[in-house]
């Protein structure tokens, strides 16, 4: 069977990217294999682990549970889009380094997306809200404690920057 190629165009990390995909290409495969944005990780490929989280029109979603054709005309932010304009790590990314919130790093891009989405919507989250926000992301190394600390630290720093 010959699969139809669909032309798509989406704003990825602020830049319009166009391409041709078959319908079954998942959003995460398009990002990684076609656009070479390999920061987003593929874990379980069926929506359980959260490693592939990206922001879709500003909201965190699992990019393994969307097909790339669905992104046509939409806005996607991957972990590569979180850095500062000068290429330095963001406040949140710095906080992850400082509190040792990653060991193997596999879950980290998804954690960063989930955490950034939380802080965008709620700049002063409680510990419970932090845990709820990352509850869809599995980490097999840290036991989560340092990740919670990193997000709380980032919230504190971003609050200080704002005043």
């Amino acid at each position, binding site marked *: *069977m010959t*699969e*139809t190629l*669909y032309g798509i165009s989406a704003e990825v990390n602020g830049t319009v990217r166009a391409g041709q995909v*078959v*319908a*079954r290409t*998942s959003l995460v*495969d398009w990002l990684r294999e076609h656009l070479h944005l390999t920061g987003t990780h593929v874990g379980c*490929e*069926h*929506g359980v682990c*959260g490693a592939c*989280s990206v922001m*879709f029109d500003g*909201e*965190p*979603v*699992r990019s*393994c*549970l*969307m*097909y790339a*054709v*669905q992104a*046509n005309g939409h806005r996607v932010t991957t972990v590569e889009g979180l850095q500062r304009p000068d290429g330095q790590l963001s406040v949140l990314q710095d906080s992850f380094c400082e509190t040792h919130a990653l060991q193997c790093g596999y879950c980290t891009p998804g954690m960063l997306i*989930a955490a950034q*989405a*939380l802080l965008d919507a709620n700049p002063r989250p409680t510990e419970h809200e932090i845990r*709820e*926000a990352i*509850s*869809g992301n599995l980490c097999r190394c840290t036991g989560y404690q340092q990740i919670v600390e990193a997000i709380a630290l980032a919230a504190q720093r971003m609050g200080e920057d704002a005043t």
Partner: protein
Amino acid sequence: MKAPPFEYVRATSVEEACALLGQYGDGAKVLAGGQNLVPMMAFRLLHPSWLIDINEIPALKFVAVETDVVRMGACARQCDIQRDDAIAARAPLLRQALSFVGHAQTRNRGTVGGSLAHADPSAELPLVAQVLGASLVLRAASSTRTLPASSFFSGPMMTELRPDECLEQIHWPVWRDRKTGSSFNEISRRHGDFAIVAAAAQIAVDDDDRCTRAAFGVGGAGPMPVAFPDLAQRLVGCRLGEDELDDVAWDAAAALEPDSDIHATAAYRRHLAGVLVTRVLQSAYEAAKAVP
């Protein structure tokens, strides 16, 4: 695990989606939030030839909060319904249930209609539909029909939707009784997982704290979620003490026919049902009494 090959079409109106369903019939599946369908395709449990994407149809995302009913399009996102304070004021069970549905990332994409059409026996929204007696509007190219939740679900992952029909709207009845309380609770291995057993209740009381209206149900303990209108009727007219609640809850548990599987035995599920129904009835009753 990648999905098998299929063709994709983005419908721009309900009419177009229904026409496409009429054309492709059995070979087509409606793609809403995709939080169940996409993993099932990745596991190759489903092999549709066509996916009809209804995510870009504004008419399927409306929400209308009215005096007697909350109406919504089938493609209303779970996150939007959860955040909506007007809905929470009229049909609080929806927000209570949605806090148990998946995680932020899946609720941002997942739809109310998708969860109902998928009809997982442990899923939260089908249980709420049964307890509140929601109505579902099913649309085909040349016909529209409305089914109560009690006739819509027909088995595990099975509904009365015909291959050429699309779930178009869901209507959630609003209880206008001033002192109304509701509660949702479930036991799952981890928060956000499918429930092993879930229970939901809504109760209204008069100024003497006597129950004037009650509804409750159980999910995850049979082929589909069930409500117990006859047992709930027994609560009406009473002040609800431990004995009344226990009697009804354990009669409900006894009426269930749960299966054993890798997650829990049938006996454990039945036990959980009794415990959870007691808890949600108690908690809904307390909430109703607390309304000034």
